């Protein structure tokens, strides 16, 4: 279970971290006024600083007990968390598999896995849906719109 407070905290740290990265990077580009006008780093420095300050404010607001929203005890329950993971983890594995297996094979496997393994659909139906997905991608992108999707290292090794 994840509390609203923890979630607010994590998000504020995330945005704040991004802000710090922006500030640090912008210093490389030069800040202030030069013969060419406002230097390239000035605007990012400004936005980065705003992000950091805003994140600090959100951090404090999210943690302090006076803030009404921090009092919501549970933001994500255990069941919700498992549902989230059930969607996101296969999606992440799918994305990770693309360089190796290619878009078509990876997406077919992905559809098959999320439908057949938790038994949402019978195996034959999941197979049909998986094949249909890969075929639809091929027809729409490779044929109709002439966009080449990655075929993957495996296909390259096999000579496609």
């Amino acid at each position: 279970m994840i509390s609203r407070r923890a979630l607010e905290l994590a998000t504020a740290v995330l945005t704040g971290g991004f802000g710090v990265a922006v500030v640090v990077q912008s210093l490389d580009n030069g800040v202030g006024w030069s013969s060419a006008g406002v230097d390239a780093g000035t605007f990012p420095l400004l936005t980065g600083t705003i992000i950091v300050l805003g994140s600090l404010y959100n951090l404090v607001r999210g943690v302090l007990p006076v803030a009404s929203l921090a009092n919501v005890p549970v933001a994500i329950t255990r069941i919700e968390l498992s549902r989230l993971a059930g969607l996101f983890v296969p999606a992440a594995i799918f994305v990770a598999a693309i360089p190796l297996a290619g878009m078509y094979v990876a997406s077919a496997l992905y559809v098959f896995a999320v439908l057949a393994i938790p038994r949402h659909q019978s195996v034959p139906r999941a197979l049909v849906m998986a094949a249909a997905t890969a075929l639809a991608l091929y027809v729409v992108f490779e044929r109709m719109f002439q966009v080449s999707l990655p075929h993957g290292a495996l296909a390259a090794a096999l000579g496609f």
Partner: protein
Amino acid sequence: MDNLGELLHGFSIAVTVPHLVLMVVGVLLGILVGVLPGLGAPNGVSLLLPLTFGMQPVSAIILLSSMYWGALFGGSVTSILFNIPGEPSSVATTFDGYPMARDGRPTTALATAFGSAAFGALVGVILITFLASWVAQVALAFGPAEYFAVYFLAFASFVGMGGAAPIKTVVALAIGFSIAAIGIDTVSGSVRLTMGVDELVKGVSFVVAVMGLFGIGELLVAVEEEFHARAVSSKIDWREVFRAVGRLPRHSVALLRSAAIGCWMGITPGGPTAASFMSYGIARRFSRRGRHFGTGEVEGIISPETADHAAGTSALLPMLSLGIPGSATAAVMMGGLMIWGLNPGPMLFVDQKDFVWGLIASMYVGNIVAVALVLLTVPVFAALMRIPFVVIAPLIVIICVVGAYSVSNSYLDVVMMLGFGIVGYLFKKLFYPLAPLVLAIVIGDKAEDAFRQSMLMSKGSLGIFFANKLVTCLIVAGIALLLLPLVLQLARLWRKPAAPATAPTAQEKVII
């Protein structure tokens, strides 16, 4: 009367067989994403965007805008029949729409909603027809300082009127600006904010961000709760459709008031969601039958629907004439415009007359097509709600992945898209607004360039922003909007020294 001539010319572009087919396809796809929870107009438009890269700009914008109309209508269908808003902007429609449908009058509820929605859209389009070219003409005289002031006003109004926590809005805006700055700086040519990743030199495409934020993020929010579609009958009684539409003029005050609220909220970037809530709230306060709101009142359907569509339509006015989108969906469309090689803003009205007037004419036709199609297809789409979410979810993931990849054939984009998905989920969950984030990613560069060019002109003096009346007014209005939340907070403290912190309102739960 110039505008009318141009409009007629626009009709000759919009009313051709290929474009009518595109409208039908767009509206049907739009209703589909509108009906499916977890997908909305911004997602739908961004999912479709990569497919338009090879099209003529007019055809592409007709397809995308038709999808937008379809999504606006589709969102109302599920609100009324299932009590599940398919779109954040149709949440307010559930308050009276669902009770009326449950009481055995689904046709009346749907027809009232569609009729008033069409009226709202019509007012929005008429406003665009007559005002857009005028605004563009004024804007042609703008220099960089004026442009920066307009951008500033747009960003400030998100903070002042967006409805989300002001500091969260500011953070979202600043993150958008920083993302827009990644890559090669257009003024100096130096490489910025690549965090040591060479591939980031090309910058972060807004399509990648939108796919993640709206596509994956929304999906994660939707998967959290299992929803059960408990439908009331979705049979349409055609005679009742005409009777319900015929009764609409009796509520002309509510119609006009809601349309005005919608147009105002659409042009200033309040967006359709805020507009529909505001309109519902005002209607409940001023209606003679205000006490009955929530039990299936006709005006409780008219007010949010009219405002929703008026706002959705008029959000395209600032996009076309100033290059500043009034809603998240308009921001996505504007990104599309730039990808198709057009430069959104007043020059469109000079250089791309066919495009602008073709689009405006297509809004008239597209909305008629949308009303007709949505009435005809209500039973079909109501049946679609029974497709289990587990089947739809992986398909949406695949569309997002392929879409992100096809922007510039880069695997890094796909990974970033997934990252944006997590950010979108967190932001949605914690009521950080996504619309200003997207807006800043799309026009952040332009705002920065405008600022730096004006600084060059004035040799580094901020005085250029107070050099003439127009620019001063815009900047002062922007600052006022920025400070508005602070002033309201102080006023509240001053009136009630120990007031309890405000609870999250119903509106906060649905802010994009």
